[in-house]
């Protein structure tokens, strides 16, 4: 474990990713303290609308006169919470399905995987939009739409990994010793495929965030006036190109967050793969 932490600290990619995400999480938690105008989340100041960046408003103001920097900080809360909960739910659906389908070899496990194929066959964004549109725009529905859209990614991965573990000698001996199927799956297989799941989760967080932002952009995300990055970009569209700062800040925020997750995922994959290779 200690060796692993050391490896991590030496991996510049993973550390950069973690640093970006750490700063963002800190900004989200401390939003009420850090934001120069925390009241701008819900109040309007039409007299200072669409002002370019200045000392008073670091990133300019939006069409309602709200301070974009303050709204961005509060938007980080919504985005990070939504993505984390949605990915958590997708993991809760996908991992057990993948484990069970991978462990047993019968028509039922084939059928489970075909169900995940069906979900994968619909373009994610279309599926998420359809669910979001059907259920109406609210934070809960965005989470539901995203988790229903993304669970097959984990199910497929866990399925493939479990299938390859199934033939390992340590699994066969556990079965031979009379361990129950649940015991083998949870205590023997799951810990050995955890690293693959972690890597996929880091990258999946980025993809899920992009879809969440797209839903917000199309007006199917968290309802106004709560600040949301995707919707901020949509609002800025009619003020381009004059109010260039309006779309720049939320777009850059999305970019940085997704980049953080991608870097973390890449770094983790290198570290964990190297560990597996060395062990063998």
């Amino acid at each position, binding site marked *: 474990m200690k060796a692993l932490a050391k490896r991590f600290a030496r991996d510049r990619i993973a550390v950069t990713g973690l640093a970006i995400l750490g700063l963002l999480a800190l900004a989200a938690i401390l939003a009420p303290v850090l934001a120069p105008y925390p009241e701008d989340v819900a109040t309007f100041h039409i007299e200072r609308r669409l002002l370019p960046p200045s000392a008073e408003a670091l990133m300019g103001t939006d069409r309602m006169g709200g301070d974009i920097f303050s709204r961005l900080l509060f938007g980080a809360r919504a985005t990070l919470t939504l993505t984390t909960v949605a990915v958590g739910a997708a993991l809760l659906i996908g991992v057990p399905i993948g484990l069970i389908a991978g462990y047993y070899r019968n028509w039922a496990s*084939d*059928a489970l995987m*075909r*169900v995940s*194929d*069906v*979900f*994968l*066959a*619909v*373009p*994610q*964004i*279309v599926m998420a*939009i*359809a*669910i979001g*549109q*059907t*259920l*109406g725009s609210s934070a809960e529905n965005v989470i539901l739409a995203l988790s229903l859209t993304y669970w097959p990614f984990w199910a497929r991965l866990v399925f493939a990994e479990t299938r390859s573990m199934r033939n390992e000698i340590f699994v066969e001996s556990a079965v031979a010793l009379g361990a129950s199927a649940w015991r083998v799956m949870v205590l023997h297989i799951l810990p050995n495929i955890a690293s693959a799941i972690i890597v996929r989760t880091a990258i999946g967080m*980025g993809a899920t965030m*992009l879809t969440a*932002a*797209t839903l917000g*952009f*199309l007006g199917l995300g968290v309802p106004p006036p709560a600040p949301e990055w*995707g919707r901020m*970009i949509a609002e*800025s*569209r009619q003020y*381009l*190109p004059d109010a*260039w700062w309006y*779309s*720049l800040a*939320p*777009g850059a925020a*999305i*970019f*940085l967050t*997704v*980049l953080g997750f*991608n*870097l973390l995922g*890449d770094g983790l994959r290198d570290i964990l793969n190297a560990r597996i290779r060395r062990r063998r």
Partner: protein
Amino acid sequence: MSWLALVANRLFWFVPTLLGLLTIVFILSRVVPVDPAVLMAGENASAEQAQRIREQFGLDQPLIAQFVDYLHDTIRGDLGRSLYTQQPILTDLAARLPATLELAFAASLVALLIGVTLGILAGLHRDTLLDHVLGIATISCMAVAPFWMAMEFQSLFSMDLGWLPLSGRVQGFPPAQVTGFIFLDALITADAGALWSALQHILLPTLTLALPAAATMARFTRNGVIAAMSSPSVDYQMAMGLPRRVIIWKYVLRMAIMATVTQFGLTFAILLTGVVVVETIFDWPGLGSYAINSILQSDYNAVMGFTLCTGVMLITVNLLVDILQAAIDPRGSA
């Protein structure tokens, strides 16, 4: 599992997968909180008028009966009528398919050119400055929200600089319609103006779509090149004293590109997802903008038609890729 058994297994599951797709889409479209009959009849319509529309479209039947009807019609190629355009869905989709195919083809081509070239460069110069720069560039391309990239492109190249048109497929009247593909039509009718205009219009949407796909391809190609370079066969050729140039051009690139081709299913999925948003922002009259409009208007026949259409395309592409992959490399089909 032998190759034939794998193909048989995939083909056997093709129909149930399609059926599952239809079921999901059907369920989704029928729990809409808005009553489509009221929507269609208009705000001021009486209850009787709404009821007549309900009966006309079979919306008063039980859900199971509606589903059976739907399956029956779909098998005969009848996807119903759009609640908005009043056209058969199949006609609507067919009219818009060429625009999307044109865009998807252009984006695939650009993504393939950029992605494979950069991936080979990065793989051959592994762990050099070039490799690191390309690595940062690709991972950045994958982190940009496509809708934001589209808007910033429009803002910079169309509004600020005025170099490229803001949206649409072609300026003024399109060339006489022969195939529906503007590029082909312009070539057939020898309309140089339309061809030039179409090129200018397709550039920004193509770039927006192609960059994330190119980044994904570059990563796969790089891994393919590295795997090929460290394979025993290349070690052998090195030991035999073959020049590095020959080894790379004759063996390494072939193996690496093969690895990239088998990932085409993934690239196709990325493009299909991107098309939906990119078409909406650039007012590209294709399937993607049709889908968004239909969803926002609760035109569920159209949504089902679109989802079915893209779903079938994706399932078929994945089926072909699976079969191709098993044919190229039988080891993966265990």
